[in-house]
């Protein structure tokens, strides 16, 4: 206990230096913990999004299919359309349960001076495509009704029965989508036929969402479809998610490498700080040797200081990371628009413990040289000063 008190007291003697060193560790641990938490949240988010999708694969125009599919999922506009006539071939396949066109576009909202993201869907298929959705109101039953995502509704103070006008056509809000925690909250949903008319693309679709009767037939169905319908590409939802994962993977590796390099730089800071402390306290070390401390005791005291310093920094880093998770998430979402919806940075005690164990090891390693140096000090030379 006295050793611990001594270590803490010694660190407090050079408060500013200790604090700055701990801050270096805290920053790097915050980065490491955030990246690890983000990676975990990312995987969970992907799985969640896959579970929530009521379709098994998408038919998209040929080009870069995975990107198109992920963009469709996240509401971006693709300047390339499929002809809905391909649906005839799709629904003719025996294992297909249903196929539904999806049309995504941006429409100017003249009253609010902004552009809204509009998702055209078959309203009769809504319950099948978005099985987890809940509404305040009802699903549109006419071509001049629409659903508003919860985020848009709350930002614009929209409620059931309000009227919105797009391209000169008035729409009544038939329902407000209850908060899903996904990007679905940021869209306007209208019947696909109405949107096709507005866009003057009566047979146009950004993608066709397809559900098979049994998931086991998915591979067979997609293979057959790609062969019989020219000019299309088939992307399963798993492929989309894996494509998103791959997009993010290189970023993850790079950011993890940066975090580890930052920790190594901080470790050099700890070593430097501890070495300075050892040189400044040479006489005290000599005194401790004189009153009975062995070389091992001195080694332990200095190593304990390094460990306390890094653990303090590590704990602070985790607190910073948790406190700043919203900011980190916003920043990452801006940099990586294809990531899954929902909370990405969750506090995971196992990850926190793993980060602390890692930083403790770093602390021990960076404290070894100063501790060895302190243990080697000759008590005579030390006392003489």
């Amino acid at each position, binding site marked *: 206990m*006295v050793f611990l008190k001594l270590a803490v007291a*010694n660190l407090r003697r050079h408060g500013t230096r200790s604090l700055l060193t701990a801050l270096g560790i805290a920053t790097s641990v915050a980065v490491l913990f955030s990246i690890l938490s983000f990676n975990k949240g990312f995987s969970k988010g992907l799985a969640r999004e896959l579970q929530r999708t009521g379709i098994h694969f998408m038919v998209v125009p040929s080009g870069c299919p995975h990107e198109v599919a992920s963009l469709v999922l996240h509401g971006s506009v693709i300047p390339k359309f499929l002809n809905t006539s391909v649906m005839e071939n799709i629904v003719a396949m025996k294992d297909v349960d249903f196929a539904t066109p999806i049309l995504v576009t941006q429409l100017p909202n003249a009253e609010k001076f902004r552009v809204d993201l509009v998702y055209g869907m078959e309203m009769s298929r809504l319950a099948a495509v978005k099985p987890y959705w809940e509404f305040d109101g009802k699903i549109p039953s006419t071509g001049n009704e629409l659903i508003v995502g919860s985020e848009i509704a709350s930002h614009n103070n929209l409620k059931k029965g309000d009227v919105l006008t797009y391209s000169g056509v008035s729409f009544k809000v038939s329902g407000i989508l209850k908060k899903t925690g996904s990007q679905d909250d940021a869209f306007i949903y209208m019947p696909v036929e109405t949107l096709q008319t507005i866009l003057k693309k009566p047979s146009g679709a950004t993608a066709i969402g397809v559900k098979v009767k049994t998931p086991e037939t998915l591979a067979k169905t997609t293979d057959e479809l790609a062969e019989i319908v020219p000019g299309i590409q088939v992307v399963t939802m798993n492929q989309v998610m894996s494509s998103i994962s791959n997009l993010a993977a290189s970023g993850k590796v790079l950011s993890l490498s940066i975090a580890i390099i930052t920790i190594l730089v901080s470790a050099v800071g700890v070593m430097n700080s501890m070495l300075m402390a050892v040189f400044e306290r040479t*006489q005290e070390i000599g*005194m401790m040797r004189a009153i009975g*401390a062995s*070389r091992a005791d001195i080694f332990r005291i200095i190593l304990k200081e390094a460990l306390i310093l890094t653990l303090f920094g590590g704990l602070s880093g985790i607190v910073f990371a948790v406190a700043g998770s919203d900011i980190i998430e916003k920043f990452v979402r801006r940099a990586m628009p294809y990531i899954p919806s929902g909370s990405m940075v969750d506090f995971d005690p196992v990850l926190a413990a793993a980060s602390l164990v890692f930083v403790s090891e770093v602390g021990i390693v960076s404290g070894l040289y100063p501790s060895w140096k302190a243990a080697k000090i000759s008590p*005579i030379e030390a*006392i003489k000063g």
Partner: protein
Amino acid sequence: MIELKGIEKTYLRGSEEVHALKSIDLKVSKGEFISIVGPSGSGKTSLLHVLGCLDRPSKGSLLIDGVAVENMPENKLVQIRRKKIGFVFQQFYLMPGLTVFDNITLPLVFSRQTIDKGKIIRAIELLGLKERIEHYPKQLSGGEMQRVAIARALVNEPEIILADEPTGNLDSENSEKIFELLKSLHKNNLTVVMVTHNNDLASRADRTLLLKDGKFIA
């Protein structure tokens, strides 16, 4: 109790070889109070360090309770320092971040002894530091700091106290108090070897040795 036979100590100062101690013979008996005086650089502190097993002689033999220790491994010397020797320094060398109580317990911690709180408090009271027990060194006067250092030296119940100019940083009033404290400890059968520049205090020891150029001249 401690015997030095033909002790020599040489060390290098740059390329120059310095003979700090030359053929020192000394016998310190149990319960003695010895003062060592001499000009600066005469080898007083070097002698104290050899006596306290902090430094090894370059030549000669150091016997503690009849056992030659000059070639003992470092871990054995640590044991001797823990059990038999208490050091008091001119600069006190208290740990600034620890309270009086914790400073005094340090030797017990190093020697892995159980901390008998009551015993330490009694020692603190004996040295007139009762009110200062939870104070930090910076809150103490020079005299109080040296009393804490003496309490720290005594806590392991050593056989000998080696005091290196214990009054060197104190005014005459506090010097007198510290010396009286050492005298009272000596009366309780503790062996004391004190290095000092203060001839008046030195003359009041049982035996005064004068060291010059690494040799006893009186």
